[in-house]
């Protein structure tokens, strides 16, 4: 039966991990078993309480992220997933991802996920070099990752993402290339490759944040301008800017050779395996966030959940919406642009027109022309549509381009 209704995605946040990584500024921390159980109960309660409100929505994708969702026990995760299946209208062919970290999963957990409909895994690897992993504060080795990956394959997971990072302390272009090669040998369906950003409030900020160049956006790109000339240096400094950019270019080239295309600034996939869930964020599809600090966008209204763990648990998962705002047309346009441009396909003029009932050039002629003149944007005809997308250089400095689209 064709069910004509509204569509949304679900994001579920699990704010726990075994140990906080040195670069991590996400809402996550180690917690006692007791706290985890209280949280799971509150989260289940939240799911149940909200079920009525979202009955009209069909769920096209689910993402259980963290933190490290796989720190929850098999039983806890089964309860969560079971409740979710009961409360929400998850489409049969929905993309259903759980984020896992090597060192926290075993065969039993992976089997349980599968039984509850999980069909995609996102594994946090970051690097194939154990020294680099150690410096990041990761709790696993590359071998442990291999074990996890192979188990997943054996259990029939046919859609796996691996998270990688470039620009790490002590990382060389060569070591990064080896990471890429080792990972590609496993033929994952999807790769996320981020370049490290040192965020305030993390141990890395204290180590690398000081005396670095402020880039104006509050985050810092911390790569030193010149690299000291030490051969085979095991120094722990960050790769210099040029190396960092070369790593980024290597990623694009090597992955392309192996049949992966970049569909978003930091995401690569074999054809057909682009993450639907993530693409939804860039295309401004509806999503409901459940759990601590999660974000939602439903029918042009954004809000966040309570982000204080104790408050969330004490109120049994039913808290006031935070930072709630109904997006004005202008704000919707801004988002349409700066989110849409993250996709390599870019934004379609036709879609803009259809959505806002105004030609894009009436609104954004100036920044578009400026971006094109500066070589940061380009117009491409594709399938009878005109698309605006970032050039290679535009990707490198995309903040500059995107901020031009804010009113």
């Amino acid at each position, binding site marked *: 039966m064709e069910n004509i209704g509204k569509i949304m995605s679900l994001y579920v946040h699990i704010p726990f991990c075994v140990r906080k990584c040195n670069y991590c500024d996400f809402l996550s921390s180690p917690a006692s078993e007791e706290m985890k159980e209280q949280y799971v109960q509150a989260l289940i309660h939240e799911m149940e309480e909200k079920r009525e409100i979202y009955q009209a929505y069909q769920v096209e994708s689910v993402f259980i992220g963290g933190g490290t969702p796989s720190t929850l026990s098999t039983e806890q995760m089964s309860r969560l997933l079971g409740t979710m299946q009961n409360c929400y209208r998850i489409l049969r062919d929905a993309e259903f991802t759980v984020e896992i970290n090597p060192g926290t999963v075993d065969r039993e957990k992976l089997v349980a996920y599968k039984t509850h409909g999980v069909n995609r895994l996102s594994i946090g690897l970051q690097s194939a070099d154990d020294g680099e992993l150690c410096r990041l504060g990761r709790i696993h080795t590359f071998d442990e990752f291999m074990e996890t990956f192979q188990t997943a394959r054996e259990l029939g997971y046919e859609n796996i993402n691996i998270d990688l990072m470039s620009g790490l302390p002590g990382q060389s272009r060569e070591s990064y290339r080896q990471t890429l090669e080792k990972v590609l040998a496993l033929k994952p369906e999807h790769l*996320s490759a981020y*370049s490290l*950003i040192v965020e305030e409030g993390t141990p890395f900020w204290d180590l690398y944040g000081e005396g670095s160049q402020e880039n*104006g956006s509050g985050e810092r*790109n911390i790569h030193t301008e010149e690299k000291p000339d030490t051969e085979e240096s095991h120094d722990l400094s960050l790769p210099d800017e040029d190396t960092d950019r070369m790593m980024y270019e290597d990623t694009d080239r090597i992955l392309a050779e192996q049949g992966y295309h970049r569909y978003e600034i930091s995401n690569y996939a074999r054809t057909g395996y682009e993450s639907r869930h993530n693409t939804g964020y860039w295309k401004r599809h509806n999503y409901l966030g459940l759990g601590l600090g999660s974000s939602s966008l439903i029918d042009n209204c954004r809000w966040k959940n309570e982000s204080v763990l104790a408050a969330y648990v004490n109120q049994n998962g039913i808290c006031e919406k935070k930072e709630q705002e109904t997006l004005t047309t202008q704000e919707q346009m801004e988002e349409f642009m700066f*989110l849409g441009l993250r996709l390599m396909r870019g934004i379609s003029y036709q879609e803009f027109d259809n959505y806002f009932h105004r030609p894009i050039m009436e609104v954004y002629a100036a920044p578009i022309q400026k971006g094109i003149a500066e070589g940061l944007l380009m117009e491409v005809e594709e399938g009878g549509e005109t698309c605006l997308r970032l050039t290679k250089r535009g990707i490198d400095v995309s903040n*500059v381009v995107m901020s031009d689209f804010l009113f």
Partner: protein
Amino acid sequence: MAQIDQSKIRNFCIVAHIDHGKSTLADRIIEKTGLLTNREMQAQVLDNMDLERERGITIKAQTVRTIYKAKDGEEYVFNLIDTPGHVDFNYEVSRSLAACDGAILIVDAAQGIEAQTLANVYLALDHNLDVFPVINKIDLPSAEPKRVIEEIEDVIGLEAKDAPLISAKNGVGIEEVLEKIVEKIPAPGGSPENPLQALIFDSLYDSYKGVIIFCRIMEGTVKKGTKIRMMATGAEEEVVEVGYFGAGQFLPTEELSAGMVGYITASIKNVKDTAVGDTVTDADRPCAEPLPGYKKVNSMVYCGLYPADGAKYPDLRDALEKLQLNDASLNYEPETSIALGFGFRCGFLGLLHLEIIQERLEREYNLDLVTTAPSVIYKVYRTNGEVIELTNPSNLPDPSEIDYMEEPIVSAEIMVTTEFIGTIMELCQERRGVYLGMEYMEATRALLKYELPLNEIIYDFFDALKSRSRGYASFDYEMKGYEQSELVKLDILINREEVDALSFIVHKDTAYERGRRMCERLKDEIPRQLFEIPIQAAVGSKIIARETVKAMRKDVLAKCYGGDITRKKKLLEKQKEGKKRMRQVGNVEIPQKAFMSVLKLDDK
């Protein structure tokens, strides 16, 4: 009010080094003489503006009249004229002193005599005022009243043995000060029958009453209906009202006569017509000659003021107009800068005056300003015999048309503890100072005398002095005159384009050093952009220093985790806001603070 016996009037002021407690003592005098109840008494009644209270300095002269019932059973009228406390306002100080018959000298019991103590007390003695000392802050643990009394006697030659030892803050010893005022300050002279002769020592613009003239009647009488004439400016008007100064209010009265201090209003529209130091007389029965000492006050320091947001230009103009109503020493003229757009070249008495105006524009008028480097007035002698008074470095003629140039020189006195003499002499040397001599005040303190080019002290000399002496040096100066000097214009080129707002005049020997430091500073201030930006310092066509801002390689957001779009949008908004605070010069965006940061180059 009944006729006041002239012999019961005391017109006086308080002189002190900054921070020695002048305003606090003034408050106590007002409080003890019962003019205000405690409840009405806001700390430091006389400092009107928020700025004055915050900075603890007096900018405009303030005056208050109060009645004191002395121990002899008589009632005395006290007119306390609070004078500005900064070298920038020296002329105003001198006019306020001229309105008094005596002065109280306050000296801090811990710090003793400072540079301004000396300058101010000599100024008071020059005006033939009877001065008696008061030792303040005796409550401080570090107070050494004995030593300070000796110092006053030795250095100034003022008898200080029976100086009241007080703590203005705690209200200790105030009675004694009040009795001393009666005893030591002479009653005013002059006759109410003589032709009117009144000294203007300040004026204030009131949107309702027009200009309010603060004056001291030296001779004669003035009342409603008197047709008055300002002798220097020639302005004539009929008096609408005369009166006294209450605390923060004006109290109308029948007439003001010789020996009194009060105000006159006469529907005058512009403070420029009532110049400080001018003499008010009766137009129908004028006095023989004006009072001595009037001079036209000239601006010493100039700088460009530009609205950060170009659209606010009319607002800036209106604000300057309003400030000028109350501040005859503020000058401004429209000017245009390629880098900064439309703005004004403004003239000030000194750097403090500049800062005050800048702060008032920002606070009271809500303007965001970009200020160019302050400049003094240079005299440019052209080969064709013409002399230009240069206030904006960009207007310097081509070197081939310049015969020679002159720059203003000041005589400076720096009081310093002996351990810092070496460092401070070094600083003065760096600033092209000419050593004139040194006097030991006592074993541990000395007074250094230098001649310094004004352009070397207007930037950050005071800060440098304080930091190199750990706050112990004090400083005072007065204009000496103009001297010939080897000056050049230093230009800054950003991405090979000259930025007019960053040009300044500098001595040729320091051009290289300043140019190098400016390039370094600008390199830190200018954020990376999409392309490489050379920053160069040039004298004429010769590049003397260069730095490069490398091109931005990467500025990209990593993941938008869990769909947290708001957070990422905030980052983009911050970036956009940052851009708004930039000035577009050619195709380079320069943060507004870069224009000001170049002023602070002394980083020792």
